[in-house]
């Protein structure tokens, strides 16, 4: 019998490498991109907010109080003198001697201590469990002391809480829309690439048609066609579907290309020669080879969805008040007067930028990590 070849790589590092599945290898490579790792943490934090928005909020986002309009940002101080004790300057009312009206503003002389894990307004955790625990708050929430971390808008609504709720809507739409796109893209692109023939021709022409239509007028038309009396949830759903119907084409093309290339691979032929069914070949052999790439591409597609939704809502054609999203929040900052008087109303824009950047960095990192698998 021929001599047995010895183990290829004797060191333990090599051993670990040899039993590492693709996902582990991708993770090891991803870990090296520090910026991408940091962005991933940011995204995790944001999605944590998505899951528990009421926990992070300080006030009921819908609660209006015209007297408390345009209160500026209460700067959070961490140290009270030498001690560690977070506090904000208090919100106090003063009677205007001329108009005899109460005017509320930030009073630098008084301090409102900030507490963690306080009781606040009631809500339902995950929509089911009633609770009233909040991350931040004042010692006496429904009394004289208020906490407006990011100020208020013209209707006196707490911007921090509204931003938190807006984050939930905007980030969710992005994710769901991309998921639908991926499902559509992989299915149609896969049929197109694997089966070829008439199906390929039809689907490719459909993609070309959809891609040649100008997107903004299409969105505008579709969303304007939504009935005005639909509830915010229905509008939410409709917007998501519209975004994904228009967004799947690029992914579909890519998936088709991958399938065409994979069809010629030897290991796919080996599976066919073994007698594997078409379904098994697609699901077990072809899809896993480019799944990591698809995930990377999808991650890069989410920012586009977020911006689309934000733009639509900003123009009043997407999510409409009283539902809250980043676009709706930015609607409040549409005129120069408001921006000049209350520049803190633009902060949602910063959050949009932050989330888009984070998604782009994570997507880049994933794409680089998923890329050259064959050595």
């Amino acid at each position, binding site marked *: 019998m021929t001599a047995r070849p010895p183990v*290829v790589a004797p060191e333990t590092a090599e051993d670990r*490498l040899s*039993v590492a599945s*693709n996902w582990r290898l991708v993770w090891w490579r991803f870990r090296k991109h520090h910026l991408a790792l940091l962005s991933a943490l940011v995204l995790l934090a944001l999605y944590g907010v998505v899951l528990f928005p009421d926990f992070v909020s300080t006030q009921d986002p819908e609660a209006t109080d015209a007297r408390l309009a345009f209160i500026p940002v209460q700067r959070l101080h961490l140290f009270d003198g030498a001690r560690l004790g977070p506090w904000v300057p208090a919100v106090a009312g003063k009677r205007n001697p001329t108009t005899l009206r109460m005017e509320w503003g930030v009073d630098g002389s008084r301090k409102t201590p900030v507490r963690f894990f306080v009781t606040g307004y009631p809500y339902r955790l995950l929509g089911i469990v009633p609770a009233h625990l909040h991350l931040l708050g004042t010692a006496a929430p429904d009394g004289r002391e208020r906490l407006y971390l990011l100020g208020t808008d013209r209707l006196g609504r707490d911007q921090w809480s509204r931003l938190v709720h807006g984050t939930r809507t905007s980030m969710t739409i992005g994710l769901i829309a991309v998921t639908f796109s991926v499902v559509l893209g992989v299915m149609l692109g896969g049929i197109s690439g694997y089966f070829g023939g008439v199906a390929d021709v039809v689907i490719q022409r459909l993609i070309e048609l959809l891609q040649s239509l100008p997107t903004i007028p299409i969105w505008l038309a579709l969303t304007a066609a939504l009935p005005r009396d639909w509830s915010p949830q229905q509008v939410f759903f409709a917007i998501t579907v519209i975004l994904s119907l228009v967004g799947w084409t690029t992914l579909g093309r890519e998936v088709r290309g991958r399938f065409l290339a994979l069809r010629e691979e*030897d290991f796919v032929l080996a*599976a066919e*020669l*073994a*007698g594997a069914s078409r379904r*098994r070949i697609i699901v077990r052999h072809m899809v896993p080879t480019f799944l990591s790439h698809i995930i990377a591409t999808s991650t890069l597609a989410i920012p586009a969805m977020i911006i689309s939704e934000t733009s639509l809502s900003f123009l009043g054609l997407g999510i409409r008040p009283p539902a809250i999203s980043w676009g709706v929040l930015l609607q409040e900052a549409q005129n120069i007067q408001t921006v000049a008087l209350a520049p803190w109303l633009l902060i949602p824009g910063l959050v949009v930028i932050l989330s888009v950047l984070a998604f782009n960095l994570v997507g880049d990192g994933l794409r680089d990590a998923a890329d050259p698998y064959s050595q």
Partner: protein
Amino acid sequence: MSETATPWLLEVRHLRKSFPIRRGFNRKLVGTVRAVDDVSFTIREGETLGLVGESGCGKTTTARCILRAMTPTSGEILFRAADGRIVDLSPLSRAELRPLRPQIQMIFQDPFGSLNPRMTIFDNVGEPLLVNGLRDRRARLERVAALLELTGLRPEYLHRFPHAFSGGQRQRIGIARALATEPRLVVADEPVSALDVSVQAQVLNLLLELQTRLSLTFLFVAHDLSVVKHISDRVAVMYVGQIVELATTEDIFRHPRHPYTAALMRAVPAPDPHAPSGDAALAGEVANPANPPPGCYFHPRCPFTTEVCRTERPVLREIGAGHLVRCHRAEELALTGASADSGIPSGQHR
């Protein structure tokens, strides 16, 4: 074909495979590439038939037609199945082929593309078993471990991924996978071309041993004459889609009867600096299978061309015991083959 005690396992009759050439916006048919142009041969049980030729000769296409990885344009591929029936594989549909698949398997050329990089060795080698009904995981584990040992690998490697292995080891894994369903016919498509010299020797030895142990039948496709000589019982030489010579290994190498075969042997550089260098190298380029020359396809490059070669197509005919040639002048020509005595030490006898 001649009669011997051992029955034939595969008989290929007048196999043809053409590819259309389409140009223009409306994909008009402007020509055909006759990749396989009337190929016929038989393979007996337990023997290795080497199929050799240069690029574009159609050997890979022939192999893939036999495996039914593509559908032939015409011709018959008669296979003696395990239950004794003789089946013509060429017109069968995908569903009809499925029960026969375990009996004909393939060893691929590229060790890096032939294994699914996302699946462990166990999954890769066990795939044919799983797909053909062996659902019990433990039974599969045992069988895969046995197959790995058979091909000279440690069974502990089951749970590793292909990227952990060298080219030679991956080829062994590919061989293990091909043998999983105990096939009757194994088509090896250039299995050692992509390997280093020392690894080639190991894999060739493995194939020789496995053939004896498991009584396998091989169709061995290669472009390297020395490799083909080493492993085959009979050799078929192809040129531009046709078989130009078919004989036992010893016959064909000692006494080639087709000028192309002789030219191929002369062209192989011998690993001996004192051997005469190829002064009379074959002129011209390999003929274009989409537009082959009239008459004998080889005539523009052949040093022995006569008028009849330019006009009439030669047929494959028997000129000695089991020795077939496609040449008008086969009887007259005295061609030299590779000499049997060696200046290099030879291997031990089995």
